[in-house]
């Protein structure tokens, strides 16, 4: 019998439906008793601490490069004194959160996708389920909550290191004291710069964990599917990060930056 060809839109709808069911399973298990604290802490360490060097280095370089790129343009406009303010606002509002989230999508989401995909292939998830344990609570809930908790913290650290990178760039080209630089940076930021950026990093963290877990948990049998799960997790999570970013920026523009 010839294999029935399923149209793309139907597959997309089925996939979306599966994601909604998976999401429902996550929320049902979050509020169920017996939260896996030790696994949550372990995941926070794996996800947060082990990503800090990568996020920190990237943010530092981004701050440095941004300062070097902005400087000539601001000189042309006679607005070099605006450099710390421009750097601080762009790093805190956009560059910090988005760079951190994209790096985390590449490192964490793919890692979770590959790990759970491999557990699926080697029947570890089935073994957990068949033993009467709850694999969603142990594997999925802890990972999604750990990314939701750790990505905002990584972003804050990334912001600070980005500003330090910017200071280094400014200090290479001109003689500005660190006190003056950081005073100008902090003075140029207010609550409306921090809050929307912080809120969107929570959503970024959630989507990074959710997509990684969904792709890994629902990967097919076979070693090839582990690679596919990891790859698909990065692509989908990155796409979602930009979609969430666009939505949050729209909402925060309407609320705060009229």
């Amino acid at each position, binding site marked *: 019998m010839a294999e029935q060809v399923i149209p793309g839109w139907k597959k997309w709808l089925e996939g979306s439906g599966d994601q909604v069911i998976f999401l429902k399973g996550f929320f049902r298990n979050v509020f169920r008793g017996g939260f896996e604290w030790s696994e949550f802490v372990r995941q926070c360490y794996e996800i947060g601490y082990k990503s800090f060097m990568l996020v920190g280095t990237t943010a530092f370089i981004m701050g440095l490069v941004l300062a070097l790129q902005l400087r000539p343009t601001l000189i042309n406009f006679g607005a070099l004194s605006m450099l710390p303010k421009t750097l601080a606002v762009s790093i805190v509002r956009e560059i910090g959160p988005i760079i951190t989230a994209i790096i985390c999508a590449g490192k964490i989401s793919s890692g979770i996708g590959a790990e759970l995909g491999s557990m699926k292939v080697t029947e570890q998830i089935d073994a957990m389920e*068949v033993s*009467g344990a709850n694999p969603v609570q142990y594997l999925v809930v802890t990972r999604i909550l750990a990314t939701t908790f750790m990505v905002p913290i990584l972003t804050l650290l990334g912001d600070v290191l980005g500003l330090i990178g910017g200071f280094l760039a400014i200090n290479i080209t001109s003689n500005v004291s660190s006190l003056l630089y950081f005073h100008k940076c902090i003075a140029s930021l207010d609550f409306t710069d921090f809050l929307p950026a912080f809120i969107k990093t929570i959503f970024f963290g959630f989507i990074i964990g959710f997509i990684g877990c969904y792709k890994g948990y629902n990967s097919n049998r076979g070693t090839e599917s582990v690679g596919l799960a990891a790859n698909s997790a990065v692509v989908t999570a990155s796409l979602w990060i930009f979609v969430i970013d666009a939505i949050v920026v729209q909402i925060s523009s309407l609320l705060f930056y009229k």
Partner: protein
Amino acid sequence: MEEPDKHTEQKNKLSTSKGEIVIHIKGLKKSFGSKEVLKNISLDVKRGENVVVLGKSGQGKSVAIQCIVGMLVPDGGTLTVFGEEVSGMNEKQLKQLRIRIGFLFQGGALYDSMTVRENLEFPLTRVLKLKDQVEIDQRVKEVLDGVGLLDAIDKMPSDLSGGMRKRVGLARTLIVKPEIMLYDEPTTGLDPITSREISELILQMQKKYKTTSIIITHDMECARITADRMVIMNEGEFITEGSFEELKKSKEQFVRSFFN
């Protein structure tokens, strides 16, 4: 300590006497897309019995035991375990049933991010909800000693050989003292000596823990050692059954081909 007591009490209440049928399968059907994997299988397994299901690869043997434990939902037929219809069970009932059934996967399915000790502690703390660390340690050591791997207690699964992984997998399954054991090709991928050791261990554990077992295999030595009764599966159906010696003398070419 409240939970395990409740569990034992429930187990005793639901326990059936020796010789009574604990797994009843009648006219079981299962298809994947257009492929009919289980056509019409029927089987009764009595308490304490070791039933070996023999058949070529890809004939649906594993699908049958996955239906027993509720991993797959059959398309038709009746499947009762301890007198309860499996497909009609809700999540809670299924969890209770799974505590009473042990499932040994082909590769052992050890959690590779945990040590052997943590693998064995996992069902005790997550399924039986044991809190007393002294009791947990005692049960872990007892069951590991039973499979002869007490020395490997702090090793990672990646440091174990194929045979050792299966032993640890068996220990992890037996630690919750299940009443039924389902073995999915327990000796596949092992050398003949280790295969024999695993088969003898299965028999030894069955006697020690007094479990009812279904063993899926195409290893005749494993079947000879472990089987009280054998059923032969072909193209999604059980075609014949009997003891090892009876089937060895079978006149049917397909059955004889397993023994040659």
